[in-house]
């Protein structure tokens, strides 16, 4: 396949970025999107240029490292997959593909297509955990959990923290991510005792990081590689309202 790439190049965090055009020639249709970039980068390196920087790690859709907005859509318009799972056969011969970094004030560009998503780590550090000594894995049936609760918590727990929800949101809101993390722990009996403390801490850290507010467009759930539903945002709103009332009463 022969393709034209419009790629965001930015030499550093404070540099001004711009779109540059590259010709991607003789790309096998069975190559993944990242392999296509590897091929293009090999060509750039051979010509003595600076290769296009992008994040990647497992390349099998589970680590959450890869990012990229492909034709304006995080992880491409293919639903339920990450960028590393996108194959070039999904594009047309001769197509022009726009490749940009995830855009959000809270995700500053490090270089080219790499962005700093450590704001997510700070949100998790603020409340995305339970305060118990876990030790070794407990016997599976020692704490019974209803099937519906287990399913709901597991659906939320599939979040890989890639940040596509933020990148797709016109307000760069992290509500789907935070909603998933809160739901994952709040639904389970192990996480329930610290539910209020957790929700308040997560939301306050999210606001402090400069993420925007949810305007219920649900673009986040459309691009989420794990197809997490915006229902977790509704649950987060409910849990937050209850938590702030209980916090006020307790004071």
């Amino acid at each position: 396949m022969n393709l034209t790439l419009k790629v965001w190049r930015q030499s550093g965090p404070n540099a001004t970025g711009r779109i540059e055009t590259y010709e991607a020639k003789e790309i096998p249709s069975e190559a993944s999107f990242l392999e296509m970039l590897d091929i293009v980068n090999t060509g750039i390196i051979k010509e003595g240029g600076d290769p296009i920087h992008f994040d990647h790690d497992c390349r099998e859709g589970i680590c959450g490292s890869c990012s990229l907005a492909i034709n304006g859509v995080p992880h491409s318009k293919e639903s339920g997959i990450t960028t590393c799972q996108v194959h070039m056969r999904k594009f047309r011969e001769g197509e022009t593909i726009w490749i940009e970094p995830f855009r959000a004030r809270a995700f500053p560009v490090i270089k080219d297509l790499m962005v700093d998503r450590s704001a997510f780590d700070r949100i998790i550090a603020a409340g995305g955990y339970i305060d118990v000594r876990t030790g070794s894995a407990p016997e599976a049936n020692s704490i019974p959990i209803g099937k519906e609760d287990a399913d709901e918590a597991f659906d939320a727990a599939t979040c890989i923290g890639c940040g596509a929800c933020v990148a797709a949101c016109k307000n760069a809101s992290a509500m789907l991510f935070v909603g998933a993390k809160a739901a994952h722990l709040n639904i389970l009996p192990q996480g329930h005792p610290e539910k209020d403390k957790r929700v308040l801490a997560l939301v306050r850290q999210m606001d402090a990081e400069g993420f925007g507010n949810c305007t219920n467009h649900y673009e986040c759930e459309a691009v989420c590689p794990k197809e997490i539903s915006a229902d977790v945002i509704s649950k987060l709103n409910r849990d937050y309202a209850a938590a702030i009332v209980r916090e006020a009463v307790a004071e």
Partner: protein
Amino acid sequence: MIKKPQMNALGKTLLLFWNSSIGKKLVVAITGLMLVGFLLGHMTGNLLIFQGREDLNDYAEFLHHMLHGWGIWIARLGILGAFFLHIVATVSLVQQNRASRDSRYACDTTVQAPVSSRIMIWTGLTVIAFVVFHIFHFTVRLDPDLAAMKDPGNPERHDVYGMVIAGFQNPLVVIFYILAISFLCSHLSHGIGSIFQTLGLRTEKTRVAIRNLSVAISVLLWVGFLSIPILVVTGGLKDKTDSASHSSERPGPSALAEN
């Protein structure tokens, strides 16, 4: 040593609430819910115009005299308060949102957000302009001709029925009214669903019902509010003071059908 005034627990909570993203959105949702309730009541009252002059004017008189005339001011202050808070919270949220997404995609794509959700600020701003116009038009009555209209059956009271029909004789007024109500209903088709989401009532089980309810209320309000100017313009609703000899008889169903 001067003691600094300490904020009490309630004040501190309210400030924390207002300064949080979800808190401010809850303000938008609750005030939005109040405004939707007002719109449904306002539309129902307006539709009394189809019952005839006496019923509509009776209703207007009731509104002005309930709770010894205090009722309407309590309602007005409540509605204006909700309207004001809705706008202040929204403008603040929009400013934060624009700051949060400080760079745009060169290839800007929308996957599933409907148009109504993407033009909320513009439909909202049109509604503000309309509300200002509407209050001066039909509540303050800047036009002395509209202000002077008296009910032919009871010259002591204002003739709301005649005022509405006279008010919609101006095609520019009708066009602005149709445009503003259409924008309002677009605003609501996204807004009503958002109220449920922000209040945390949207779940897998209620998702479809909430979307249908949003559309149904928006369409109901659109048809209800617009039926009046459209029937006035097309001649379906007429001020018959000249021909009907001011009788206090209510127009029966046959008269309505005739209209």
